[in-house]
């Protein structure tokens, strides 16, 4: 839980979120992208056509690089608050040419 975060701060109790079925710890109320960033996850998806790595770039909802699938549609992880038990999927799921 501590990696990438200021150590020594007492935070609200962590909750579990799922990314492609994998259980991850996150702080309620923070944005999904930051929860993933704090655990060292820089690449969140691959670009649709050339399959290059993509991740959070602007951190303010402008660049759409940190898209994840949630609730059946692509959402910006940097603008998506953590909710206990939420199930996220990497986006896009299918590799296209």
């Amino acid at each position, binding site marked *: 839980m501590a990696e990438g975060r*200021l*150590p*020594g*701060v*007492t*935070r*609200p109790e962590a909750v579990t979120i799922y990314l492609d079925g994998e259980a991850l710890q996150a*702080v*309620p*109320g*923070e944005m999904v992208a930051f929860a993933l960033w704090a655990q060292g996850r820089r690449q969140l998806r691959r670009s649709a056509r050339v399959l290059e790595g993509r991740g959070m770039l*602007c951190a*303010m909802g*402008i660049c759409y690089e940190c898209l994840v699938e949630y609730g059946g549609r692509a959402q910006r992880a940097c603008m998506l608050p953590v909710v206990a038990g939420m199930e996220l999927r990497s986006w896009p799921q299918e590799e296209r040419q």
Partner: protein
Amino acid sequence: MVVIGGGIVGCATLYFLARAGLRALMVERDGVAGGTSGACMGHLMMMPGPELMFRFSTHSLELWRRFHADLGGFDLRACGCLWLGESTEDEAVLEDLLRTVQGLGGTSELLDAKSLHKKEPGLARDLIGAFYYPGDGVVFPMQACSALLREALRLGAEVRTGCSAVGLQRDGSGAVRALLTDQGDISTAAVVNCAGVWAPDQTEAAGLGRVPIFPRRGDLAITMPRDLPVSHQMVEVAYLRTATGKVADPEDENPDPGAFALNLQPQTNGTLLVGSSRQFCGMDRAVRPGLLQQSLARAQRFVPRLGDLQLVRSWAGLRPYTRDKMPMVGAVPGLPGYYLNAGHEGLGITLCMASAELIATQLRGQEFCMDASALGADRAFSEMQHG
């Protein structure tokens, strides 16, 4: 000691308490720098008056420089500030600024139109000149909060985020005994309310009534990083009127039309912050185009190439305003152990270091380096009593 609020004032207070060897804990309802400090410009700005504010602000800037030199961990751009004169009517204001600041011992100078153009070629050619104060600068506020907390934690302080203060418990003599939070009671002999625009909610929860600190909104925009057309922090002389003059009252029944003046902050990362407006409209932080568009047009009048830059984001922040334009720093009368450190309006980043040092010296029963009794929290409560 418990500090309420994880904005820049709370972070600086926690750091100064820890540095003074006091056991200190901060509670923050949301995340660090999630309110006003996360929505501001980050300017470090000398206040030309009154004399106490000049001394207090320049002392705070000195504390910032020392903290940055000793510990670093955040961006501080020592870019100096230009107070721009637009027409011959501003000449007297510029001269008055120079006389005042030099009279108080501040290094500064007047630039005529030619030397202003040489210093800042990106400015409109028809400006008459500027007052230049080299000691000002810009910090990145979220980083600065984090640097202050990192050091406070190293010195043994504690930080709890996601923890809301909801009330106060007093002992038999009426003094502070514990801070009540949504996660249980925290026993403490002293509480420092650093909650900014939320400070009235906290004084009310402590049974003191609402301290007269009011949200005064500011709309800002930021540009895409690139080679900037200007390199100094800049304000127009009219900024003094909108920032420190009386333009409206927060409790007036009529809607406040707001005021705006040029305020440009070139950031260390190559972006330019453009502001700024001031308006009383409650806690509303939704972006509204009106005043922001006027601020942008005003900025372009001073920096014609501003139109070449791309805006990437705009937002609003809430400054904690006090009627006499000075922060309320010190012990609250009638409630031993309760301290206020709030109401810095647009100067929270500038003043937080001096303000925090003042609180720490009071809590240790020491002398501060100047007579700052005019900033005392007692005036808040006399204002409440006399309505």
